[in-house]
């Protein structure tokens, strides 16, 4: 049970914002799966269920996912199954069970910037952007590194790549491919480490989450690989090994009940090497 004085389900974003901005104790409700485990005293809980934000739309160069879309929909939606090698669906498929994923929303997962989030890691590797009611469209990477924003998350946008769907596009030496993996001690548990890698239009992005801090990109490892690609060279197994070591060295890891920082650092190197091998070779 949530400690919540009032429940409102506005019919427009403007109305939602008006209610939200009246008190710092007011909260936008996502799936409430995690929110209910805390002890927050909520003034008014604002439910976006009447705003028709449960959708997945395919645009010319990006896919738009409404904030109230359930995690289970990310697994079953035919549009998402056909892009990014299905990593969005794969990233959420081990989160508790189907009944849970029919409750949790993408908006709640992203807005909360949860360190344990499988989904945020996958979205980060896919260079996702988020649409905020007041703040407009910003990169997810920017949002994750920014101080807490008081805003309403409306949708998540994922670019589909410049060459996708173009028949006459010049074939890349490293075709577009994405990879997701999460290391868990047991099924349904929070992950010890999450990893997502994308190669879109010969640009590699490596995102590591559950460090246990929130997901971040391995920028030095990405730069190392992308410079090789820019020279029009094929990445070798040795270079993959070196990139994995760079990623493991540059990222900061912490300890919690699921694993020590040193353990995560070691895991990171192994998982990045395996992931890159799948994406690039």
């Amino acid at each position, binding site marked *: 049970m949530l400690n919540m004085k009032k429940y409102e389900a506005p019919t427009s974003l403007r109305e939602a914002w008006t209610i939200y901005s009246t008190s710092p104790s007011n909260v936008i409700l996502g799936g*409430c*799966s995690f929110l209910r485990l805390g002890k927050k005293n909520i003034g008014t809980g604002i439910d976006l269920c009447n705003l028709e934000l449960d959708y997945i739309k395919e645009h010319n160069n990006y896919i738009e996912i409404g904030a109230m879309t359930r995690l289970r929909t990310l697994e079953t939606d035919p549009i998402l199954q056909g892009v990014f090698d299905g990593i969005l669906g794969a990233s959420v498929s081990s989160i508790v069970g189907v009944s849970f994923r029919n409750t949790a929303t993408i908006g709640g997962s992203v807005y909360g910037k949860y360190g344990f989030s499988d989904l945020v890691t996958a979205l980060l590797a896919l260079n996702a952007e988020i649409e905020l009611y007041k703040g407009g469209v910003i990169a997810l990477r920017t949002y994750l590194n920014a101080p807490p924003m008081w805003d309403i998350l409306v949708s998540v946008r994922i670019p589909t790549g410049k060459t996708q769907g173009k028949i006459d596009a010049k074939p890349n030496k490293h075709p577009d491919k994405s990879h997701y993996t999460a290391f868990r001690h047991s099924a349904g548990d929070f992950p010890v480490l999450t990893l997502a890698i994308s190669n879109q239009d010969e640009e590699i992005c490596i995102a590591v989450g559950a460090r246990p801090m929130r997901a971040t990109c391995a920028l030095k490892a990405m730069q190392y690989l992308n410079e090789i690609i820019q020279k029009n060279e094929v990445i070798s197994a040795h270079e993959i090994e070196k990139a994995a070591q760079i990623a493991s060295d540059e990222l900061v890891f912490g300890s919690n009940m699921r694993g020590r920082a040193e353990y995560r650092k070691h895991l990171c190197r192994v998982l990045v090497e395996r992931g890159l091998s799948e994406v690039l070779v």
Partner: protein
Amino acid sequence: MIIKTVINGKTRTLEFEPGESLVSVLRRNGHTEVRSGCDTGSCGLCTVWINGKPTLSCATLAARAENAEITTIKGIGPEGESLAKHLVAEGADQCGFCSPGFIMTVIALRAEIKNPTEDQIKHYLAGNLCRCTGYAGQTRAIMNWLKETSHEIHR
């Protein structure tokens, strides 16, 4: 708060506090067939269908049930009984506390995935915990039940 909702085909009016979960409101209104287990969204015991989708009623605000169709284990009819018989036959129904949520999820699985493999079954049911068994009996029971009722979904 007061809302109208449909539970097992009957229109009901429910009254509750704004932050209450659906499971507590359902149980207070006589639907004790919906079990309350971990109350953290981890065990699957409280699974009901909301508009046909298996959903954790402990992780769902009761307010979100407004104008929705809720189905509990009492509302699924003979389908649940036939699955329960297979669970008993395989010795998979021991204390029985997890059975309502488990059965709701298995029937939803059959509606969603045609001819599921054993791996698909295990993955779909990963959020339904049973502390008595090792799941082997339940898996056998589901496979037998799907085999027996396959003509019903392919007609």
